């Protein structure tokens, strides 16, 4: 870019103009003001349901039925109450944590190994594998295959088993995870791998000490994507299990009838906040890495 182009003040509507414009502040910045107003409207739309449920969880019971957003009286005892009164709650929470962690770990392991192999190792048929993974993203496999997955699980004696859920859960995001890892490993130069091979390092060592640190951000994306899916899966869990104490927390919440018995509305909301918070907090901490990973690997195509 030439010097002239920099010097020339290009007028961009909406940007705060600093020159001696005779018009008033609002007139000058009307574009920016309207823009931020529209954006903030959408931001409020995004956040409002979450704010509502958060407030609901600390409303007093009479206030919970009144509908006003802000309660007349706060009541913070619902969080303790749900642990005391809903006896399967700790079990359901444990199920969720156990199933999700196992799923995330297994999927990430599969995806890293496969992603590395698909980029830095040579074998016949890899093109076919990539094509099949890609096509599977577009097909409603999850829905249509539920009949035979039920059959597989009952053959393996895994109906109504919490651990049994892990196997189909791993597959839910396996294709996209492998493809993300593949595009991450494509950023690692072949020469780097070759050089390490010449020095006598095996593939395992190269993957562990050279590859993994380089694909870290993509790994964060895979963690989050798989966490979100496994933590909130409904169809498989509600089809493959029957008893409340083997199910995951969100599925139990979905079946709970609001306002009845132990499930007063603030109690429901309190459980909801407990279940939804870990994901949002984890994301808040990892968001920088997540966005980097997203930019590097996911939206590249």
């Amino acid at each position, binding site marked *: 870019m030439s010097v002239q182009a920099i010097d020339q003040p290009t007028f961009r509507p909406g940007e705060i103009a600093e020159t001696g414009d005779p018009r008033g502040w609002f007139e000058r910045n009307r574009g920016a003001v309207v823009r931020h107003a529209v954006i903030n409207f959408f931001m409020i739309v995004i956040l409002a349901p979450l704010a509502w449920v958060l407030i609901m969880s600390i409303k007093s019971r009479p206030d919970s039925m009144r*509908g006003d957003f802000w309660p007349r009286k706060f009541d913070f005892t619902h969080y303790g109450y749900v642990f005391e009164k809903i006896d399967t709650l700790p079990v359901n929470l444990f199920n969720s944590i156990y199933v999700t962690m196992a799923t995330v770990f297994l999927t990430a392991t599969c995806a890293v190994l496969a992603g590395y192999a698909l980029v830095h190792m040579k*074998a016949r048929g890899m093109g076919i594998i990539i094509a099949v993974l890609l096509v599977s993203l577009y097909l409603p496999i999850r829905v249509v295959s539920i009949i*035979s997955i039920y059959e597989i699980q009952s053959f393996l004696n895994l109906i109504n088993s919490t651990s049994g859920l892990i196997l189909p859960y791993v597959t839910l995001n396996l294709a996209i995870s492998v493809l993300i890892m593949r595009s991450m490993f494509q950023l690692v130069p072949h020469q780097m791998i070759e050089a390490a091979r010449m020095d006598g390092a095996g593939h395992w060592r190269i993957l562990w000490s050279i590859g993994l640190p380089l694909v870290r951000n993509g790994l964060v994306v895979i963690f989050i994507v798989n966490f*979100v899916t496994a933590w909130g*899966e409904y169809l498989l869990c509600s089809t493959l299990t029957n008893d409340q104490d083997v199910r995951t927390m969100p599925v139990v*919440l*979905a079946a709970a009838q609001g306002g009845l018995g132990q499930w007063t509305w603030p109690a429901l909301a309190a459980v909801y906040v407990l279940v939804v918070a870990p994901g*949002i907090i984890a994301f808040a901490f990892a968001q920088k890495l997540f966005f980097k990973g997203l930019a590097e690997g996911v939206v590249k195509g």
Partner: protein
Amino acid sequence: MSMAQAVAAHGYGRATSIRQGLAPWVFLLPTLIFFIGYQIYPIVRVIWISFTNYEFLSNEPADWVGFANYIEAINDPLMWQSLWRAALFTIMFLPGTIIFPLLLAVLIDRVTQPRIATVYRVILLIPAVIPSTLVFVLWKWMYNYQVGPINHFLVDVLGLFTVYDAPQWLGGTSLTLPAIAIMEVWWGLGYHTIFFLAGLAAIPKDLPEAARIDGANEWQMFWHVILPRLAPIMMILVVLRFGTAMAVIDEYLIFGGFNRETPTYTWTIFMYDQAFKLGLWRQGFAAAIGMVGAVAMVFVMIFLLRIFRSRD
């Protein structure tokens, strides 16, 4: 000369070269086991089941019945009605989930203060990290006629309705599909905006500048400079979201039920009902319903892809 050949030349190479050939497959093995076991085999199996009178509960082995299940499905008016319901939902959902994020992305792309832009991006992705079931549960409560804030807003704040004629969103009324569509648009709003923002970031900055110098106004610029460059991303989104919208099932299970008359009784629920809910457990017939629905929607997806391809 590759490593393998180099080693082979030294004599003790055969075992090594076999190990070299196997190594990629060792790395791919875990993925292949899961993918074949829980995606490819189940699909092949379901196709086979759809040609038999297979039932889980029956002790007798399944018999091959040819196209009988398919003929029964195609002749059942419910098959077409349920497919149409899924299409209706897709029509309600698809425009909103493309247009709002597009608008929002164009606006956010112009935010020059990096701090504020980051805050927006983080808020945008919050719904995307809320697991599916928790989105559905939250909105089920939002639509609740007793405590839900949506009806509270419509009745008490805006005064558009009274308690007696307040909209019934849930339970398979005519409002249930729009209610689910609104929820889905909310859920995808942030994620799709991020998608479009990535596309906008890839547009060279001198392009809009040049158009401005040529005297293009904002609208012309959006229409002629920005939109054509976002088209590839938009097409991917349309095809992917068409696929998810047509095959929605969890939402209907949670918001609807198994009443055949209700708008949420789509082909996915029809299949699920036949396979798991009705006492009959006719998995063969259910599989045929699933295949008819899946083939119909994949057909439209291929059609969409071809249209989009030909425009390039």
